[in-house]
C-alpha cells in the first residue's frame, strides 16, 4: 500500500470570520475604559471582593467555560466543546456561588483562600450593532497558590466577553472562557476566571 492511503493529506481549512472586524482602536477612549474595567475586575477578584464583582455583572449574564479536547488540525474546530462545560452559569447561579463563599463558614475550597494573580493582556475590542455593547477578547493568565505550595498553579485562557455600557462604566453580559488545557491543572474551579 502507498503512504497516501494511510495518511490523509486533504486538510481542509474551515471558513473563518474576517481577521479585522469593527475594531475599536487601541488607545481610544472606549478602549481605555474597557481595559480599565477588565483591570479593575481582575483586582476585585484577586482581592476577593466578590460582592463588588457581582455588582459588575448584568442580570442576563451567560458565563460559560467549554471543555477542551485534543483534536487533529483538520478537526480543530471541534476541540471546543459546548455541551458539558466546566462552568455553565447565569447571574442567579453566580450569586449562589458567591453566597456560598461570603455567607457561610464552610466554603472550604476557598477557606483559606487561594492567592491568585489575574494577568489580563491582549485586549481587542470590537464595536457591535448596538453602540452600547462591545465584543471584547482578552487573554488571561491566572496563577494560583494554595497553602504552602511553592509551584504556582497556572491556567491560561482567552475570554470572549460582551460588555454593555451602564452609565459611566460597563457590565459583563456574556463571558466565554476558552481554556488552553484539556486536563485542567487547577484542582477545581472554585475561583472565577
Amino acid at each position, binding site marked *: *500500500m502507498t*503512504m497516501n492511503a*494511510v*495518511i490523509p493529506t486533504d486538510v481542509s481549512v474551515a471558513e473563518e470570520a474576517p481577521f479585522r472586524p469593527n475594531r475599536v482602536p487601541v488607545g481610544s477612549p472606549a478602549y481605555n475604559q474597557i481595559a480599565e474595567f477588565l483591570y479593575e475586575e481582575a483586582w476585585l477578584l484577586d482581592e476577593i471582593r466578590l460582592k463588588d464583582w457581582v455588582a459588575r455583572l448584568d442580570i442576563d449574564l451567560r458565563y460559560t*467555560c467549554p*471543555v477542551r*479536547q*485534543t*483534536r*487533529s488540525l483538520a*478537526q480543530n474546530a*471541534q476541540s471546543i*466543546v459546548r*455541551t*458539558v*462545560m*466546566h*462552568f*455553565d*452559569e447565569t447571574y442567579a*447561579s453566580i450569586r*449562589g*456561588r458567591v*453566597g*456560598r463563599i461570603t*455567607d*457561610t*463558614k*464552610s*466554603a*472550604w*475550597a476557598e477557606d483559606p483562600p487561594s492567592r491568585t494573580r489575574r494577568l489580563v493582556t491582549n485586549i481587542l475590542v470590537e464595536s457591535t450593532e448596538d453602540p452600547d455593547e462591545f465584543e471584547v477578547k482578552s487573554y488571561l493568565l491566572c496563577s494560583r497558590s*494554595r*497553602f504552602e505550595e511553592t509551584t504556582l498553579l497556572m491556567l491560561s485562557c482567552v475570554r470572549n466577553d460582551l460588555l454593555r455600557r451602564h452609565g459611566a462604566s460597563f457590565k459583563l453580559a456574556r463571558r466565554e472562557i476558552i481554556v488552553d488545557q*484539556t*486536563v*485542567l*491543572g*487547577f*484542582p*477545581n*474551579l*472554585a475561583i472565577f476566571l
Partner: protein
Amino acid sequence: MLDRTRTTLSDGTTIDDLINVQTREVQLRAISDPELYDIEMRKVFGKTWLLLGHESEIPASGDFITRLMGSDPVLITRQKDETIKVMLNVCPHRGMRVCVNDAGNAKVHTCIYHGWAFKNDGDFIGAPVAGEQMHGTILPKEKLGLTQARVHIYGGLIFATWNFEGPSFDEFLGEMKWYYDMLFCRTDNGLEVLGPPQRFTIKANWKTACEQSASDGFHTLTLHRWLGEFAKFGDGDLTTSMYGTEVSSLQGHSLRCMPVANKFKQAKDFRDGNLTIAEKLAIVPPPGITKEMLPELVRNLTPEQLGLLVDSPPQVGGMFPNVLIAFIYVPQPDGEIIGLTSLHTYIPKGPDELEFCNYILAEKDAPEEHKQKALQFAVRMLGTSGMVEQDDSDTWPHITQTAKGAAARNITMKYQAVCTTPPRPDWPGPALVYEGFTKDDTQWNWWLAYRDLMNAPA
C-alpha cells in the same frame, strides 16, 4: 520473606502489615508509598475491570476516544458491526502512542513516528516501504497488532480489563449487580453522556478519592456542611439525611440508599404504607426519571427493585476500584425535582497525582429540556466547578502529603465506626446490608477488596 501470595515492599513490609483487619486500620504510609503504587498498577489496575466511558461517546462506526486504564493509554473504537474494541494505544514497533487525539473518527490509525498503520480493530495493516520489509519477517503480521483488552458493555458503560482469565464482569459486580441494575439498566434505551467528560488534576494519591467514594457519609456533615448551612438540604440538618441503608460487597463496591421520606416533604406519606408504588412514583420519581418514563421502569425492573428505587433509591456510592456514582435529587423552587446522574473515575497519574474525570449522563428517553437542566445543575454541583466537590480536592492532597512524614506515615487511618443495627427484615435486596446512620463498613470493604488484589499472585 517473599512468597507468591504476598506483596512485600523492599523494607520487608507486607500488605497485611499495612492493613490491619482485626482493628480496621490502614497505615497512612499506604497512601503515598511509590513502591506500593508500582505494585498497584500491575495488581489492581492491571487486573480488575475499569470504567472507560460510555458507548454514546462513540455512536458511529469509526468513532474513537482515547482514555487511560491505570497508566496505560487505550484506544476505544466503534467497529463496523457496532461492537466496541479497547486496545493498548501503544505502537508495537517502538512504543509511541499511536493515537494522540482525545476523540474523532478514523478508519485507520497511523503512528506518526514511523507510519505503522492499524485498522480500527487494532489489526496491523502495514508499515511504510512495504517492499523493503520495514516490519521485518521474523514475526507474522498477525502478531504486530495493538494489544487487545477484554471488553464488557454494561448499561452502555464501557468496561475493560487486561485480565482475560479473571472474573467475568457479572462476577466482578457480584450481588451488587442487583442494585446497579436499578441505576444503569432501568429504561429501554438506557443512559447517554451529555458530552465529553470534564477532566482536571488533583495532587493526591488515587486511593484518597477512591476510599471516600466507597460511600463515606461522615465527611458530608463537615466538609460539605454548606449543603445544610446555605443550600438548606435536610432543612438545614444534614444529620437526618445520613440515615438510610448502605449496601456493599467484599468486591469493594457500595451504594448508599436514602429514604425519600427523609428528604422531601412531598414524600412524608411514603412511610405509612398506604400508597402504591405507582402513586409514589408519581409524587417523587427516582433521580433522572420523568413521569413519562415510569412505564419503562416497570418493564425493566422487578417489583422488589422498583419498590426500593421508589422508597430508598441509591444516591451515591462507588464501584471498585476507582468509580464514584452519583444519582442525586435537586429539588426546584417550583416543586419539580431534577435528577443528576454523574460518574467519576479517579485515574492514577503517579503516587501524588490523580486525574478526576467526570461524566455527566441522562436517560436517553428524557426530554431535551430535562437533560439540559440536569446538565446545568450537574456542572454547578459536581466536577470541576461543582460546589459540592470543589471542597474534596483540598483534603486529598493534604492526606497524600502528610502520609510521607517520618511520624505520620506510621499513624493509621481508622475505619472503626461499625454498624451494629440489624438489617431491616423487609429489606428486599442482596449483598451486605448496613442499616441506620452511615458508618465506615463500606469503606472498610473497599480496603479489604484492595488487600485481596494486592495479595493475589501477580
